């Protein structure tokens, strides 16, 4: 049955442009059977309805395409409106990366609008975006994770460099640096806005490798092939990841990665355990670090580039079917209900005037 799907793209985030690529790809894939609209969340926090057949280049000088501004309505028949007319969608496919599109902010808005949407719900989105909370959660559950310290000029660091410095929030490699000593770390964070919300450091493991794996829970729990990105520079840099190869999908990689069974089984057992704490919704990409014999869970990307559709050669499913699973998952679930039980007016009736409460 054909569905009416709105793909949300953009967002005021450093991964705004990458999100456009993910969203346009998704729109193209789904338009095979479904009715697709694009909801564009601009860098300056405005919303527009766009033609799903646009090319990424059309966004470079975007004035020409921003003809249909959208209004948000919270009261009554809540939702997105174009010139007083409600835009009816069955479901929203969230293709935003980084920033408020991935950190729980957009998810909260969609909850208030009482609509169905794909990908992480509010709290998992927040946990996956907060590197320090994610780290402490993993540690508490005995999962292998590299020690992290919050960077704070008032406290002494508990381990020796070189360090990897990362902004505490944000999923991209922007602001990720290898730094020799703590004094340099402090100097870098004080001179850049990227770390204004906080920063974390961990030990830099020079010879470690990234190991990526996709996870989905609908219609049943599945793991993708394991990917090993091929890096040339010290870190898997932003330019390497996105700019050189026209998006994540074109990057160099080993897929499926050559990993011995023993390590593979360990990774799978970690994924299962994490998935029971922070359940995947849509497709999450788990990023591990492999350092000789040691495996560490690095982070979870709750809305990975290209929705990580390229990882699933092991499941005999087309990209359309994979995206369709994400959409069906969102449609199959009821919108969260809020209960007002307990607020039956009794407290209001028995209360005296407000002033007396202040006394």
């Amino acid at each position: 049955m054909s569905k009416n799907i709105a793909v949300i793209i953009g967002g005021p985030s450093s991964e705004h442009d990458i999100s456009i690529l993910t969203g346009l790809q998704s729109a193209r894939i789904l338009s095979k059977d479904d009715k697709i609209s694009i909801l564009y969340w601009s860098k300056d926090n405005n919303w527009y309805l766009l033609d799903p057949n646009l090319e990424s280049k059309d966004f470079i000088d975007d004035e020409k395409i921003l003809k249909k501004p959208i209004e948000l309505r919270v009261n009554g028949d809540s939702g997105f409106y174009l010139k007083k007319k409600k835009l009816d969608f069955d479901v929203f496919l969230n293709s935003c990366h980084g920033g408020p599109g991935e950190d729980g902010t957009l998810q909260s808005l969609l909850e208030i609008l009482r609509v169905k949407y794909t990908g992480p719900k509010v709290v998992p989105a927040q946990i996956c975006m907060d590197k320090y909370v994610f780290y402490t959660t993993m540690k508490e559950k005995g999962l292998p994770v590299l020690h992290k310290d919050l960077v704070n000029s008032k406290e002494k660091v508990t381990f020796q460099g070189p360090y990897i410095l990362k902004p505490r929030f944000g999923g991209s490699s922007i602001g990720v640096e290898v730094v020799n000593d703590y004094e340099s770390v402090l100097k870098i964070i004080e001179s850049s806005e990227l770390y204004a919300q906080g920063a974390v450091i961990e030990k830099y493991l020079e010879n470690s490798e990234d190991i990526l794996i996709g996870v989905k829970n609908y219609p049943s729990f599945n793991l993708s092939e394991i990917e090993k990105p091929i890096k040339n520079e010290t870190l898997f840099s932003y330019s390497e990841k996105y700019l050189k190869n026209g998006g994540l999908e074109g990057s160099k990689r080993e897929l499926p990665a050559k990993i011995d069974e023993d390590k593979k089984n360990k990774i799978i057992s970690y994924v299962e355990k994490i998935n029971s704490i922070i359940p995947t919704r849509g497709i999450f990409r788990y990023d591990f670090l492999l350092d000789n014999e040691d495996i560490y869970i690095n982070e979870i990307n709750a809305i990975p580039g290209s929705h990580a559709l390229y990882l699933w050669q092991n499941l005999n499913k087309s990209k359309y079917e994979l995206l369709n699973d994400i959409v069906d998952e969102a449609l199959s679930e009821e919108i969260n209900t809020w209960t007002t039980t307990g607020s039956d007016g009794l407290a209001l009736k028995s209360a005296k005037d407000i002033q007396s409460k202040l006394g």
Partner: protein
Amino acid sequence: MALQLLKDGKTFADVNSEKPKICFLHGWGRSSDDFSKISKKFESIAIDLPGFGKSEEPENSMNPKEYAEYLTNLIPDTVEVLVGHSFGGKIAVHMSFIKKYKKIVLIGAPLIRKNPQTSLNFRLNLYKFLNSLNLISDKTIEKYKNKYGSEDYKNVAGIMRDTLVKTVNDDLSQLLEKVNTKVELIWGERDTVIPLSIGEEANTKLKESKLTIIKNEGHNMLKSKSGQIIRVLKEL
């Protein structure tokens, strides 16, 4: 390679050794990251020049010679070879007059000043003359410069704009004959920013130099042709 704050407390460098042998100096508007593929193959230090990358802006504008003096005091004594790309190459030449190095490697460096477009220059001089007679305002001149100045000029303001002007005006052509250090010149065959002809002319002026031309490459080839540059450096 890892970033490290140097002893001045405001300049960063990408280092992989406490006793680096090679020091890399990047071009205008760039950073040590340009050398990331090359520098890791050597015991080296790649500077974020003051005003670029992670390093603080200098307190006052600096000419390339002043950059050279500043950096000579800042980098470890163990450095034997300087590698400068573009603007960094200019600094390397000045550094070779302050301290003796085994070799300097200059990649697409503006060693000889080209004449700016004469028509624009004529108009600017006319404007300046009219300005001196109070016939047009400082603002108009600034507007004109913003409209017709180079991309680099438009992209910077304040101290770094003055630094750029000093850099562009710094003409090394008289100095080249006096360079006593061995020079390795590397040029992209199709460099449109600092054309190959400048490298060829410099090669005739320098006492002891060799020019390596990288086929089909332009001005910024440090990442795309890192292999070839590493080979040249390994031969030193």
